[in-house]
């Protein structure tokens, strides 16, 4: 993988921010977009913008081909059996909410259990809290190990025959830990529960094979993998999706509408009420093409190398605490003694370095870490060793700056 060549595909990276070359280390929040994605969206609006699945005219056919072509790209990307299992949504949040609302409310009753972990993003906590409240089911948490990983023994302890749903992130957006989804899915299935995976931080960065994982649902977002905002994916096994009710009703998703009753289209369209996110899906398709051209395996190896390098350099600075396990995906979450992460982020920003500071939509995990907030640098295929150096040097400066003012 030629990082320089990859970087050249991302126009936004070639600018100065606050008088310094931009060092973008916030890809876990949202990734930057390659020119090919920007072009694909522009071409759609300039050349064949039209509604899908209804026009007899030619533009409608082109738009439908573009939209459904993107679905086939997603199917191949995660190795789903059929495009009927690929539902376009607004993002990971909508994907999880769809399952929590439709599958959750129809299949849970008092006494049943939903099992999640304290490391989840809010979008994989709150939908389950709401479903538990609505159905009388119990929400249970698998405890975390000291380094923030999950042990299979704890999973076996927590998941019981009353468990109907296990929901878990594939890669933690804070700790960078990679959860053993395949093994956990097996445990869930032994107890008759379905497994939902929040893949927001995994699908953009590593090869995901939903058939190999054998999970029942897999959710991810386009904007974290080079695609536009507003488009995401819900993968679900066909036999489960077929039994689920749609959550949005209206145009596009119907088969026959009477005065008092209606029937739904077949999968996947019954879950895509209203005019879909056509440009978004086409943009996501272009992002997948780009990822495949670089190679998911190469991207994963590159990011892991950067994260290890960052980890090594950070651990050599006095007063820096890094959270999460040694073996990690491409991000480092940290704190600098006596300096609040907002202040760290502001000083780094003055150097053109973009990092995230705050609770990372993981307040329960912050509580578990016994911190109110943390700072995070996250890497993607376009980041370089020089980016990590700029970041660590910036952090050193931050330390000196606050050392002086105190």
């Amino acid at each position: 993988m030629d990082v320089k060549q990859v970087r050249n595909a991302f126009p936004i990276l070639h600018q100065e921010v606050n008088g310094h070359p931009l060092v973008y280390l916030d890809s876990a929040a949202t990734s930057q977009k390659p020119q090919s994605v920007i072009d694909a969206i522009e071409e759609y609006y300039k050349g064949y913008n039209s509604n899908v699945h209804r026009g007899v005219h030619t533009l409608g056919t082109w738009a439908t081909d573009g939209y459904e072509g993107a679905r086939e790209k997603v199917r191949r990307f995660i190795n789903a059996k059929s495009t009927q299992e690929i539902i376009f949504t607004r993002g990971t949040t909508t994907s999880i909410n769809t399952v929590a609302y439709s599958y959750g409310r129809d299949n849970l009753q008092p006494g049943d259990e939903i099992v999640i972990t304290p490391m989840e993003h809010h979008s994989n906590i709150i939908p389950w809290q709401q479903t538990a409240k609505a159905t009388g089911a119990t929400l249970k948490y698998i405890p975390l190990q000291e380094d923030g990983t999950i042990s299979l023994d704890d999973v076996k302890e927590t998941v019981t025959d009353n468990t109907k749903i296990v929901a878990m992130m594939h890669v933690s957006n804070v700790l960078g830990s990679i959860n053993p989804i395949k093994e956990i899915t097996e445990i869930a299935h032994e107890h008759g529960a379905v497994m939902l995976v929040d893949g927001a931080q995994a699908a953009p960065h590593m090869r995901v094979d939903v058939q190999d994982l054998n999970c029942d649902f897999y959710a991810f977002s386009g904007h974290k993998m080079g695609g536009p905002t507003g488009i995401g994916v819900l993968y679900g096994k066909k036999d489960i999706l077929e039994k689920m009710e749609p959550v949005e009703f209206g145009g596009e998703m119907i088969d026959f509408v009477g005065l008092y009753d209606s029937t739904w289209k077949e999968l996947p369209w019954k879950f895509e009420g209203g005019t879909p996110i056509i440009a978004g899906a086409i943009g996501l398709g272009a992002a997948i093409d780009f990822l495949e051209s670089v190679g998911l395996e190469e991207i994963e190896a590159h990011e892991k190398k950067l994260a290890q390098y960052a980890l090594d350099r950070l651990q050599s600075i006095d007063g820096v605490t890094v959270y999460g396990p040694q073996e990690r995906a491409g991000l480092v979450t940290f704190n600098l003694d006596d300096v609040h992460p907002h202040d760290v982020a502001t000083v780094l920003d003055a150097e053109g370095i973009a990092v995230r500071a705050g609770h990372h939509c993981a307040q329960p995990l912050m509580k578990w870490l016994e911190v109110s907030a943390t700072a995070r640098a996250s890497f993607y295929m376009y980041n370089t060793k020089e980016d990590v150096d700029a970041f660590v040097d910036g952090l050193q400066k931050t330390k000196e700056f606050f050392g002086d003012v105190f």
Partner: protein
Amino acid sequence: MSFNNLDQLYRQVIMDHYKNPRNKGSLEEDAMTVDMNNPTCGDRIQLHLKVEDGKVSDAKFDGEGCSISLSSASMMTEAIKGKTVEEAVDMSNMFSDIMQGKEVNEDKLEDLGDIQALQGVAKFPARIKCATLAWKAMEQGVDEKE
């Protein structure tokens, strides 16, 4: 943006309030308490106010946050003590104007004391919410009282 701007943001007096917060703690039970968060970043402040005969007779705060939000809370509690509710709200409006980079009457600015040091925050749009958190809590508190 340079370290010069940062120096403007993190003035000595701000760091002093951050390191040695004034009026940190709580008041007895009959005082009013306002909890306010900045949900985007996790800053959290608990403001305790005692209002008697239309005047803020005492104010204390507790919370977690960055240097800007906590120093602002410290300065605010100092500034509003002894002021009438109206004066305190006026001050809050003026502070909000400063944060939005609006022109503020020089004489009035003097009345703000240490708070003037926070003027540099206006150049950092992402941090304005940190600075205004305590003031918003105060406004909500006196509003409920009325």
